[in-house]
């Protein structure tokens, strides 16, 4: 076989029960067909984790995978995907994070790490080019993310080691724990930390001295030069560098898309007080970046907590909005303290913000009382109660116990508030109101991991420029925020790009928000790095293949068109205030158009046999038929 450039070339398979380690080769077929990251993970998950497997059983697997670009000097390109069957949603669990882990893993010689079985005792893994060590983690089990991280680094005695770690919430069985890289960069969605902890693994540490070669050095350097130029001259460069995604809060307020007071208002009068702008002016002291990033969008901030000065890093829009407007909190410093606490305990801030704001809405409406909440006064913006509740959730204690399994199970157990439980496929809603962003709304409804914007992220919709819509999708409304027509094609296009981007492990700041990567660019880049020549058309098909394989995985788990839905508030209740006043989202029409664009069956939402065959997924067709799932040609 000719050499595969870009890749480390090996998959590391670790059986935790037998403490066995196996190495597998990354074949050219796998590389060309699925690229890396999310693509590698879904291929292995489809093959190895069938519907019979319970998410918290030892038979479930945890996969950490990076892409061919990680470790090279391509800007914004060293992320990782963490996948498995989700303990929270019961379907596809998949979460993506930045940081330095992906590159270090590559230098250690691995493109993918697969954890199987369950360790008998709490351990952490220390992986280098030379060995895989199963190290005792009894002493750090139960410790917070930064305390445990500190001890692991000191025990290994190497400051360059990169660690993905879970917090006490995951260990206690809270269903939305994340795997935290570089302390504040979690792969937090869908409970991948909970899955890792269920295997008795506290952390995965990697360290490598290897290197990554690209196939065509001159071409690669030229591509990077061009990308750099485009990034540095992009209008979003400085705002993103200064504020990261927190810039969205104030911008979102202007178009009325904020999830304020649990999605009951799209805009608030105190947006500036809790905005990224305010954060930048008052608290930020320094920028920090992920590996190989030229738009370092993470910031170190300093604030006061109980008379002490605290320094911490990060905070994206999702966390900022989740701990401010969504729960009616006007105090920025208290929000920072809440987010820091969530990071230390190792929980997903988006899901947490939903369960808390859901409980608050029920409390404010009088649907639950102090008797239900164990005495917590859950009025909007009561941060003392929120901090207490976060601690309770992590410990599965008091009222927090009810919320620790996600909003759907909480509503089921409480037998109240199901219509106010804002989720899609059991994954809690992110911080944007789909009534104000129709394409995003469609994306949430069809996203393969549930309510999620990062599967499609049609940022171009915010341009409100009909010319772009006409040029790209033959439909002016496609790039109008409140338009309906053309959104099916828009979402399908960006889903393919996102699947490619998550598989190359490039950051969506570059690909989606700056809109710098298209099929042509990805094709050029992939060929220059790996030496595998894929045309733009083939690259598009690769993205489509990954999306279809994920859909087939969901279909096998029982997901159909009826599950591609949105919470009823967004479909029925017009927005009351703001720039999107009066809007609801007309989902069904957009869904019809989306299935047509995907060539999936419009009634069931199952990919057609011809579509799967065209994408080279004959084995999937066979598998689905064997399981008596009807496919339309």
């Amino acid at each position, binding site marked *: 076989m000719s050499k595969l450039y870009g890749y480390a070339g090996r998959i590391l398979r670790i059986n935790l029960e037998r403490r066995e380690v196996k190495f597998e080769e990354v074949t050219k077929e796998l590389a060309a067909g699925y690229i890396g990251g999310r693509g590698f993970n879904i291929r292995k998950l489809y093959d190895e984790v069938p519907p019979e497997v319970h998410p918290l059983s030892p038979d479930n697997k945890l996969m950490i995978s990076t892409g061919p670009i990680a470790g090279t*000097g391509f800007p914004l390109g060293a992320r990782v995907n963490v996948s498995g069957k989700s303990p929270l949603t019961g379907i596809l669990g998949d979460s993506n994070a930045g940081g330095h882990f992906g590159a270090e893993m590559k230098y250690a010689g691995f493109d993918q790490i697969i954890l199987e079985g369950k360790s008998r005792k709490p351990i952490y893994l220390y992986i280098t080019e030379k060995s895989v060590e199963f190290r005792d983690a009894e002493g750090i089990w139960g410790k917070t993310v930064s305390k445990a991280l500190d001890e692991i680094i*000191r025990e290994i005695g190497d400051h360059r080691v990169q660690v993905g770690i879970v917090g006490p919430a995951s260990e206690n069985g809270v269903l939305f724990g994340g795997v935290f890289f570089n302390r504040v960069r979690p792969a937090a969605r869908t409970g991948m930390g909970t899955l890792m902890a269920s295997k008795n693994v506290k952390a995965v540490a990697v360290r490598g001295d290897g290197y990554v070669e690209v196939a065509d050095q001159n071409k690669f350097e030229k591509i990077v030069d061009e990308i750099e130029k485009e990034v540095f001259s992009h209008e979003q460069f400085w705002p993103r560098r200064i504020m990261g995604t927190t810039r969205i809060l104030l911008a979102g307020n202007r178009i009325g898309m904020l999830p304020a007071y649990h999605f009951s208002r799209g805009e608030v009068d105190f947006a500036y007080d809790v905005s990224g702008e305010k954060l930048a002016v008052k608290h930020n002291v320094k920028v920090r970046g992920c590996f190989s990033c030229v738009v*370092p969008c993470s910031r170190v901030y300093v604030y006061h907590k109980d008379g002490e000065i605290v320094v911490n890093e990060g905070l994206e829009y999702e966390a900022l909005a989740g701990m401010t407007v969504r729960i009616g909190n006007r105090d920025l410093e208290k929000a920072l303290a809440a987010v820091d606490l969530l990071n230390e305990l190792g929980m997903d801030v988006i899901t947490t913000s939903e369960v808390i704001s859901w409980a608050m809405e029920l409390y404010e409406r009088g649907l639950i009382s102090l008797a239900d909440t164990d005495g917590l006064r859950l009025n909007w913006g009561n941060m003392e109660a929120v901090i207490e509740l976060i601690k309770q959730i992590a410990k599965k204690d008091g009222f927090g116990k009810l919320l620790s399994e996600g909003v759907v199970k909480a509503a089921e157990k409480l037998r109240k508030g199901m219509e106010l439980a804002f989720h899609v496929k059991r994954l809690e809603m992110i911080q944007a109101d789909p009534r104000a962003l129709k394409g995003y709304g469609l994306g949430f409804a069809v996203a393969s991991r549930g309510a999620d914007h990062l599967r499609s992220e049609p940022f171009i919709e915010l341009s409100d420029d009909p010319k772009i819509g006409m040029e790209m999708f033959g439909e002016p409304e496609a790039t109008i925020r409140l338009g309906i027509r053309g959104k099916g094609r828009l979402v399908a296009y960006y889903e393919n790009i996102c699947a490619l981007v998550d598989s190359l492990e490039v950051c969506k700041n570059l690909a989606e928000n700056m809109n710098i990567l298209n099929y042509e660019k990805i094709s050029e880049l992939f060929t220059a790095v790996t030496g595998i020549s894929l045309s733009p058309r083939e690259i598009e098909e690769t993205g489509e293949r990954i999306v279809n394989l994920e859909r087939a995985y969901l279909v096998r788990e029982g997901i159909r068109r009826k599950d591609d839905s949105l919470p009823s508030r967004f479909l029925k209740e017009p927005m009351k205030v703001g720039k999107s006043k009066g809007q609801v989202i007309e989902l069904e029409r957009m869904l019809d158009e989306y299935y047509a664009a995907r060539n999936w069956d419009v009634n069931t939402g199952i990919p057609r046999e011809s579509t799967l065959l065209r994408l080279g997924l004959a084995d999937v067709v066979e598998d689905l038929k064997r399981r008596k799932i009807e496919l339309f040609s």
Partner: protein
Amino acid sequence: MGLRLEVDFSKCSGCKYCELWCSFKHEGFFSSTFSRIKIIKDDLREIDFPLICQNCEDAPCSKSCPTKALYFDEKEKKVKLDEFLCIGCGSCIDACPYGYLSMNPLKLKPLLCDLCGGQPECVKRCPTGALFLTSRDQQIEKPQKHELGKDYATALAAGLRLRSKWGIRDV
């Protein structure tokens, strides 16, 4: 007085972009390990510190070198390496008070910054302007040895000073 690479580490984002392109320009592949500039990071204290050759005038590396492959060039005020004379014994690496020098594991020669002939790739690629060329000559203070290594101790000492400017008292 020659050119000198300088850092303003309060601007460094820790992205290691400089490391990657340094390694690429010198070795033809991407790697942190093969870089002639080292970014020392501490995520618990938010420290990012580009460690470069301090070009010590007393050059402890050169004093320890049995073949005089490493020497301090008086004219350029810079430590230089004569690869032909180097036998790869590694004594310079132990001698460097900052933990800056490390061994190229393939060629068994120390990885020493050569300023890319006056146009350093790291300066060209640094996205935040933390790296720049100057003719000033200023040395960072020599740190104490520490459990995670001299390079880490160097970064930590500098990082803690920056944090105290932000009002953080570390114990």
